[in-house]
């Protein structure tokens, strides 16, 4: 177990370093000038001095200095928002993204798993067919469509939710629900497939033959095995829900990190691009690691296999 952890940790760090190097290479080769405003030109002497001050006149120096800062969790200044450091921006926005992402995943698990189980138990009956239709919709409809639809119905017509923004309990349900839809659908499908597989196996037949109540057989014995594929999906999915909510943030005006990820690239804000990429990469690696550990806990055979 310890060896598994250590090996995964090292691999994770190597992955993050590679991502950093790749991002850096892309950032410095972007066309355009981050110090150039749209309307007015900066005096060349001052631009030269600013470049030197932020080590941007020498790529190798910049690469080293940014990395040294990042290791100490200091991501330095941004060029677009002079009054804020990258650290402050991340500290403001990351909790929002994490909250929305976690809520969405919790909804997805709490809805997706039971739906999947029922569909498997009542295979090909009306419940299974209807949920299949909804699942297809959930997976294929992009969040800007579902989000806008929910917004129009609940905020504009029914007026029971605010149109957007952040700060009160009422701001939470719509974006969390929107973000959870594709994950719910996917989890329901995974659970259903896993359950169908397990329900036909020998140990389930034995359990039934022993006279255990069908409820116990399904929810306790079968689900334990059928849940494993869902669990391995949950790791990257949680990281994705926390980091990839740009569209949902845009539709609902949620002040999360996704918008900075996109805007920083448009603004050529090198420091902010690299710090958001590093944060996202670290989260992705960390959640995969967490799932590996959980897996080993649920199914001890895994430790030996890896």
């Amino acid at each position, binding site marked *: 177990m310890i060896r598994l952890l250590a090996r995964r940790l090292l691999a994770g760090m190597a992955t993050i370093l590679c991502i950093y190097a790749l991002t850096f290479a892309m950032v410095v080769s972007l066309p355009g000038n981050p110090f*150039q405003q749209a309307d007015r030109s900066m005096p060349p*002497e001052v631009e030269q*001095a600013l470049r030197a001050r932020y080590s941007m006149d020498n790529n190798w120096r910049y690469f080293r200095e940014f990395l040294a800062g990042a290791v100490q969790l200091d991501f330095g200044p941004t060029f677009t928002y002079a009054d804020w450091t990258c650290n402050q921006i991340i500290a403001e926005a990351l909790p929002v993204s994490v909250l929305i992402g976690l809520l969405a995943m919790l909804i997805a698990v709490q809805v997706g798993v039971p739906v999947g189980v029922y569909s498997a138990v009542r295979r090909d009956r009306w419940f299974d067919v209807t949920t299949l239709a909804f699942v297809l919709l959930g997976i294929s409809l992009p969040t800007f469509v579902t989000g806008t639809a929910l917004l129009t119905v609940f905020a504009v017509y029914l007026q029971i939710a605010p149109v957007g923004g952040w700060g009160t309990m009422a701001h939470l349900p719509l974006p969390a629900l929107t973000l959870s839809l594709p994950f719910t659908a996917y989890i329901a499908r995974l659970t259903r497939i896993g359950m169908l597989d397990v329900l036909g196996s020998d140990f389930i037949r034995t359990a039934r033959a022993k006279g255990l109540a069908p409820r116990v057989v399904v*929810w306790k014995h079968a689900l334990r095995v059928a849940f494993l594929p869902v669990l391995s999906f949950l790791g990257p999915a949680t990281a994705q829900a926390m980091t990839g909510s740009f569209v949902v943030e845009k539709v609902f005006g949620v002040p999360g990190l996704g918008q900075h990820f996109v805007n920083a690239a448009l603004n050529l804000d090198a420091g902010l691009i690299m710090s958001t990429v590093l944060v996202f990469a670290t989260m992705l690696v960390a959640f995969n690691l967490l799932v590996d550990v959980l897996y080993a806990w649920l199914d001890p055979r895994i430790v030996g296999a890896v």
Partner: protein
Amino acid sequence: MYRRLLWVCGGLTAALLAAYAAASRETRADFTYVNPSGIHTLDPARMSWTQDFRVALNIWEGLTTSHPETTAPIGGAAEFPPALSPDRTTYTFTIRDDARWSNGDPVTAGDFLRGWRRSMEPGTATDYTFLFTDHIHGAQAYVQWRREAVAALTALARLRDGWGVDAAQARGLARHPVYAGIRALAGASPLTPPVGEATGAWAAFASQLDKLPVPWDRLHQMLFREHAAELNERFAGVGITAIDDRTLEVRLIRPCPYFLDLTAFPAFLPCHESIELLRERHAGAPLSAEGLVAYDPQWTKPDFRGNGYPGLITNGPYRLASWRFKRRARLAVNPYHRDAAAVSCRTIDMLVFDNISAALMAYEAGGVDFLPAMDVPYDHEIARLARSGERPDFHLCDTLATYFLNFNCLTEAVSDRPNPFRDPRVRRAFSLAVDRPALVERVLQRGDRVAASLVPPAAIAGYEPPAGLVHNPAGARRLLADAGYPGGAGLPPVELLYVPSDQRVCQAIARMWEQELSVRVELRCKETKTYAEDKANHRFMAARGNWYADYYDPTTFLDCLATGNGNNDSGYSSDRYDRLLAQAREATDAAERFALLGEAERIMVEEDCPILPILHYALPIAIKPHVRGLYPNPRLRFAFRYVSIRP
């Protein structure tokens, strides 16, 4: 198994919600407005966005401020009007004895000196240094001296650290007096800097510099010390003097009829002395190794505490109570302001909506009282509702801003093709071929005014802009034939550079050129930063541009096209134009001055055509009917101190 999962998930959800509920307890302010993109910076010396100006002018107060309805200058922190010398070049401002900072300190002349200096110093200043160097005695010389030293110090710091210098840095060093000393030190191998601007020669020179046997660290130290020691003495040569705590004397280069309008501008705001608590020091001087003024950008935070810093202190009718990044900023009344008792809205919320359609929905739902921007994809519909009176709460503000096309008058070749726009006849032909009323009224349909000139008509009292060119495709074709391109033959494909928001109008222009002049037009749509870089380096044949007036005078527009101006993107250079601008500067009579400026603009837009004016923006805003005291105005300046909510 499932029960455990349910417990874990349910428990986590409850914990998250509880934590969120505990963290978010925000009450609604007296007045709420939306700032779509959020605040870029609250540092008055650095800001250049209208949205930032709006916040700054509500929390700070200049020597003068703007009338809420007309935006004409009225009294601010100083008594109004200030004393003016008979030759109209020296203003003496007396600070009001009841002018107070938000911590109760009296506002002093020194605070204004500090604020104004920040707007000039390399390191703290950005876009508006020219307002000082163009008008205030001695400012140009000081800023020039500073910039040259910054260039030399940057190069020396690089050489000292062993990183070498690039062409631009080497050029900065070679042009500074300190280079004579370097050549003396280098002894046997003196390096002669190249003549001219060719980057290749300078790059070769830069790579040689590195190899010189010179103690770069000592040289850097020497120049740095010398420069830092001379700093204040040199600044004393700038015509801004704090005679005593309440008297500020400003000496201008020449009479400036709009100077009191300038003093209401954010770059001219004062700065409280507490900023000194956050000053970073390098080698005992408040400068970075590159010679830039070093300061802590955290000084604009209301809740930043460090080195005894109390948080942002301002002198306007409001103070900054809280500021969450890209979320909201709350202003609360400044209890020490002389008019604090008369302010009706005690708290103001500025909300950020990245998505303006969502902001509009929030406005319709009643969560927002005021929308100062509505650039939604259906803006033509908004404009129609505003103009027809169907929505009396929608207003169109005729702004002091012009949208135009730049023609590249400078570069010989663009993308390896000869640039036909160096010939004024070609520029004129391309201008005549564009049917601007059709663009504005049929393509955009936003209610903008068709532009015939760069300066908007009827905006500046006493100034009459020229009539401009009228759509004339036949005349355009004749001119093109005169220029050697009969029927468009021989013209290379024309590149039109723009940003995504210009898609509709630029496509329409391209179509007009293709139809009327038989040229091929290549549309080059680029992201803002790339577009700005290409535009500033003249890598275009035609490029969209826009200009917002900084003050009420034609020169805020016309100076941009003067030879060598940093914002002269078209690279236009005309002796006649420059001479007329110079004559207008020296003119003492207002009517004569405007006549000279009008003639300059006529030559520019009717004969030389470096730009093609297209429209003057009419920007839609929405004000809830229960809001009183908020007036649509051309500069989109809104003073919340006069606002009240009708119950």
